[in-house]
């Protein structure tokens, strides 16, 4: 168990900067998710910790040890790969026992410890089989067992659930979180699935184009997205982002298609309000909009597009000008709505972003 520290780490592949001056501290025993779209540098960051890539600049520390230029074997971390990487020519017993074997643990001791871990992970009956004889979920557990079997200082997960089908993924997600809670080992988890990151992590690191966009607990990044990228990436369905112009004097927001939203006290309460006439983006979560069949004060008109019943909740898409706005209703019964509806955003819960995408508050 150790803290992992990145100090101004840069990693380039040719002219592409995969990790761009990243500074980050992952606390001892913490579960951190690296979240972002493909090509954002999250996997490269993980591989830098593992030693599978070497940093071009900066320092990486595990505990107090500078591991920047150490080979993977010297870092004493354990990694679970997206394709599980179970050696096809070895039995599951030998696969799980491999980290012990290279550390010179005797055959008998190896068998004892592998059996112990396998029993905890409910794969003890599969030890004599080859990886190809296991189902996807079993292979996933076997690869986790291989990471757990020796007392590594940190666990690294590279999208370990993306090859499982949806139902198994939820099951494995709960299992991984429970395991990490029990073992309390520092864990870095790479994923492009925001729901997975929200569900698993103590803290989420949102990345884009090699840079960290925001770091925070799942609720922090959900409640206070620091920029439009995080706002659009976290949450399902994503936040409605409306671009337009701030008319600070009149307390209004004029959308690109001339729809006017009365902003009330929003600008006045901001310590760093936009300038009059500045291009801004207004962000409102789908659950912070109410929908009305009749004209309503401070509501904007729109055309009903579709109603999507989701079971426990209902999503309503409304066309406002050229923009499709999503409204989330916490009701299972789809509402009966006319074609012409009025949307009333809860402006207290809205976010104002500047032209550069950074939040103004």
């Amino acid at each position, binding site marked *: 168990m150790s803290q992992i520290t990145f100090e101004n780490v840069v990693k380039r592949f040719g002219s592409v900067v995969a990790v761009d001056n990243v500074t980050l501290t992952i606390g001892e025993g913490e579960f951190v998710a690296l979240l972002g779209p493909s090509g954002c540098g999250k996997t490269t960051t993980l591989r830098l910790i593992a030693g599978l890539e070497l940093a071009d600049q900066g320092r990486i520390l595990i505990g107090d040890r500078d591991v920047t230029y150490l080979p993977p074997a010297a*870092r*004493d971390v354990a990694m679970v790969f997206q394709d599980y990487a179970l*050696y*096809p020519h070895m039995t599951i017993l030998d696969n799980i026992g*491999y980290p012990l074997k*290279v550390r010179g643990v005797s055959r008998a001791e190896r068998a004892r410890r592998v059996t112990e871990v396998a029993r905890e992970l409910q794969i003890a009956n599969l030890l004599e089989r080859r990886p190809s004889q296991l189902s996807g979920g079993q292979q996933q557990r076997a690869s986790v067992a291989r990471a757990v079997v020796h007392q590594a200082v940190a666990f690294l997960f590279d999208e370990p659930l993306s090859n499982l089908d949806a139902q198994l993924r939820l099951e494995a997600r709960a299992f991984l979180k429970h395991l990490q809670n029990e073992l309390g080992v520092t864990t870095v988890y790479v994923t492009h699935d925001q729901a997975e990151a929200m569900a698993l992590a103590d803290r989420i690191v949102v990345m884009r184009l090699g840079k960290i966009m925001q770091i925070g607990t799942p609720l922090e990044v959900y409640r206070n997205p620091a920029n439009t990228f995080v706002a659009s990436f976290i949450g399902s369905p994503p936040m409605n982002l409306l671009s337009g112009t701030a008319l600070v004097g009149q307390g209004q927001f004029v959308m690109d298609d001339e729809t006017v939203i009365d902003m009330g006290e929003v600008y006045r309460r901001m310590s760093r309000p936009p300038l009059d006439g500045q291009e801004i983006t207004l962000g409102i979560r789908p659950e912070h909009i109410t929908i009305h069949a009749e004209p309503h004060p401070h509501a904007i008109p729109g055309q009903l597009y579709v109603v999507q019943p989701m079971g426990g909740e209902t999503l309503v898409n409304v066309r406002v000008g050229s923009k499709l706005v999503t409204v989330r209703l916490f009701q299972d019964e789809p509402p009966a709505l006319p074609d012409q509806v009025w949307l009333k955003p809860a402006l207290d819960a809205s976010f104002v972003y500047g032209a550069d995408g950074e939040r103004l508050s």
Partner: protein
Amino acid sequence: MNRYRIRTTTSRALLLVFAFIMSAFFALPLLWLLTAPFSTQANLAVKIPETPSLANFEAVFRNKFAIRALFQNNLIIGGGVMVLVASVATLASYGLSRTRVPGRDVLVYILILFSSVVSGTAAMVPLFLLIFNLGLIDTYLGVILVMTGGLLPSGIFIMRDFVDSIPRSYEEAALVAGASSFRMFRDVAFPLVRPGVMVVAIWAFVNAWGAFLIPSVLLRSPEHMPASIAFYSFYTEAGTPNLTLVSAYAFLYTIPVLLLYLIVNWRFGFRFFGGIKS
């Protein structure tokens, strides 16, 4: 309808005749190799001998020069080339596959092109001079080195396809698990590419086994000559082959190659999971 059927029947019949002729063309020499050694008459007819005899083999085994060529020289040269080509091709292709070398693919293709265009007869004089200056004329080592050099580019090319088909995450998993690079190669990478190593090893062995030109140029003394040259000891002084003895010797000549194939296939199995990309 009827005409159509006649046409397809005719074309199928023609195809069958063609296939039969083609198979006969390739099968007859092999059948001859199975029957002629046991026949007492020297001719080129494929005929099961009425009174099979092993007299031809006795005569062949009395020819000490030919037997040493086959069971000593050929095994040393073939074995040497096999081991050297397989091990160097494995390591080289692994390195080429796993490192980021600029212009890597171009380099490999140029090597292949050069080895197939330039080698052989055209390179014989420089190769002879090279081996002469190294003092390796009339040694097994000289022959083994030259043949290895000739086979390596293609060997690397074949091997690289096998290595490329192995996902790197196996190796990375071993490295992160705590293995050194060498340990990882031994425990994980090599077992995974072993089918490819076997293919290249057998291919190299068969090539060396049948080689004629290089040993005939680089070797001097009769006791070093391989079997392909020893065939000439079954020719009369006038240059006509003694067909019964040549066939018996040829029969023996094919056995080690077949055996090697069977043993490797039985022991390791030619699982072509590399080589062909899905």
